[in-house]
């Protein structure tokens, strides 16, 4: 039985209707095929973008849909219900636009955001490195202040050059723009002595066009799931970035990254709920049809209770996620709640998808049914955008501070 939703407005109800219509026709028929072929559905993102579904939580003035997270997350859920990799992709795109929206200057927002949210462009988020995943502050990628025209007098106007290697980039090689985090020299010392120029001034956030010279996209990782969505390393070889593409202040990057992750985690939680709902629905449909000992297997209490636990996990994960979203929509702190939602929803998705395979029995273990794919897809959700151990770290630190 599909999700029964409480939506705040008629507008939201119509939006969810549109999403069901588009995803049924554009995502559902292709998900299994493209996942098996590791084929990225770029056109599907264009269709979602043209319908206005890639910029929902941003304000209408900059070209967004002006929707609260409570609604945006339920849209994500419906997308992930048809195709988890596309749900993850939309969440990553939104997270890639977030730093510019929240920390960009009014001029930057007016100039760049409308095109990022118009639907034709797709974003990616470059934070992790091979040795800096859970600990992003340990990143090695550097942005140096580019030697500019001395006559100009202002070093910041000369822009930056980024060097290093980012890892685990969703949409690596297929995105149109990259939100990149790199170490920068201290702002105060810029333009002084050569030694001061390299003094560490923390991490900064940049917006880099995919067509910029010096970007080196590695072949996609061979992943367990979400195989339709390429995840790559990206080499930055002295990549020039104009000063106007520095997002927020120099040295503010880690704050920006962690703030974006708080919202991004809500997105991942919603994707996990959508995936879990799908696994539940498929399992229930199978259990109603498949008969043993003269009755449908759902009528055997052992299996009925398994399905009941799955339903309880899905609904409580959704409730936890939307409760965190409502705090965000009300302007309340939600970092702890977002981590709890990510932890609860992704663990629920893992458990529910694994149990769905169990309900389908031998059939569930074959690749003829998508149940095994759901299970492979759920696993990474416990890992990315902060492992669930990191979520516990965030939660416990909040508790210690309280």
């Amino acid at each position, binding site marked *: 039985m599909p999700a029964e939703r409480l939506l705040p407005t008629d507008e939201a109800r119509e939006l969810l209707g549109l999403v069901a219509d*588009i995803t049924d026709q554009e995502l559902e028929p292709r998900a299994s095929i493209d996942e098996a072929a590791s084929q990225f559905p770029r056109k599907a993102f264009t269709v979602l973008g043209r*319908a*206005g579904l890639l910029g929902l939580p941003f304000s209408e003035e900059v070209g967004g849909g002006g929707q609260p997270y409570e609604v945006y997350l339920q849209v994500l859920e419906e997308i992930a219900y048809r195709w988890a990799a596309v749900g993850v992709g939309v969440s990553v795109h939104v997270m890639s636009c977030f730093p510019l929206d929240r920390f960009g200057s009014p001029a930057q927002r007016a100039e760049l955001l409308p095109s990022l949210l118009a639907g034709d462009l797709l974003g990616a988020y470059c934070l992790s490195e091979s040795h800096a995943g859970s600990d992003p502050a340990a990143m090695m990628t550097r942005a140096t202040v580019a030697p500019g025209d001395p006559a100009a007098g202002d070093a910041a106007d000369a822009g930056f050059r980024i060097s290093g290697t980012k890892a685990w980039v969703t949409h690596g090689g297929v995105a149109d723009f990259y939100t990149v985090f790199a170490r920068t020299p201290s702002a105060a010392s810029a333009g002084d002595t050569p030694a001061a120029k390299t003094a560490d001034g923390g991490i900064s956030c940049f917006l880099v066009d995919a067509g910029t010279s010096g970007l080196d996209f590695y072949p996609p990782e061979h992943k367990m799931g979400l195989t339709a969505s390429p995840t790559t390393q990206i080499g930055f070889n002295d990549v020039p970035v104009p000063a106007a593409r520095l997002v927020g202040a120099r040295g503010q990057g880690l704050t920006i990254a962690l703030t974006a992750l708080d919202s991004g985690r809500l997105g991942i939680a919603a994707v996990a709920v959508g995936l879990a709902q799908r696994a539940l629905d498929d399992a229930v449909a199978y259990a109603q049809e498949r008969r043993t000992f003269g009755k449908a297997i759902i009528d055997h209490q052992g299996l009925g209770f398994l399905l009941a636990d799955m339903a309880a996990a899905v609904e409580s994960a959704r409730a936890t996620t939307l409760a965190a979203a409502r705090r965000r929509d009300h302007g309340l702190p939600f970092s702890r709640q977002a981590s709890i939602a990510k932890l609860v929803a992704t663990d629920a998705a893992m458990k529910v998808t694994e149990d769905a395979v169990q309900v389908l029995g031998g059939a569930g273990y074959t690749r003829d049914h998508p149940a095994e794919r759901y299970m492979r897809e759920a696993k990474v959700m416990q890992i990315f955008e902060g492992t669930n151990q990191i979520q516990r770290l965030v939660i416990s630190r909040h508790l210690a501070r309280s």
Partner: protein
Amino acid sequence: MNIVVTVKQVPDTWAEKKLDASDRTTDRKSVDNVMNEMDEYGVEEALRIKEAHGGEVTVVTMGPQKAVETIRKALSMGADKAVHLTDDALHGSDALQTSKALAKVIATLSPDLVITATEASDARGGVMGALLAERLGLPQLTLARKVTVDPAAGTVQIERQADNGYALVEASLPAVVGVVEKINEPRYPSFKGIMAAKKKPLTTLGVGEAGLDASEVGLASAGSKVDDAEPRPPRQSGTIVKDEGDGGAKIAEFLATQKLI
């Protein structure tokens, strides 16, 4: 270009279609109702012509109150305004009466171009375009798989789908053009389109306001009558041919009797 496109709300394409037991009209209550899928191609083509040449797209439908959902869909795809002819007196109208009513409405809009689908998936009569052209006194071009409008010359040229290719057919404007599904890929409404649709002008007309007399329309005075209806008989089992070395020939023979080869 002032373009009128006709749309119809029909029972969901994949739903089992039934007749209402009381008066043998289409049962709309027990099924989901959607925009006739083929009309989406008509709306899309109207929008493309407008985008190329400027002007306005008006959606016209006749149907019960609920048919406003189909109008909203066309408006959210990008049509500019709509006319909804709705009245209890219209219930049970046949194709002749429907064309009379629609033609009355369309004539008041003075269109340069009227676009229809080839047929609706419920009745599948495929006659509305021709009936409208006749009543409006306009030329009709049918089975268009491509439409080229030349507003300066006042002409419309189409590629008319044929079995082994196409025919180029031209008419002077105004004209009625019927399109086939090959013509384009209809767009989805956008979220912003859905919001904008609510503010677009929608005129709702009853029989009297459309300049019709209730005695001209509706089940009681319909020229065609449904006396009885039977559900589709269950599918016959297929022909089973045992391959005794001549399987290929027998398959070819079977296909030939079905006129497939």
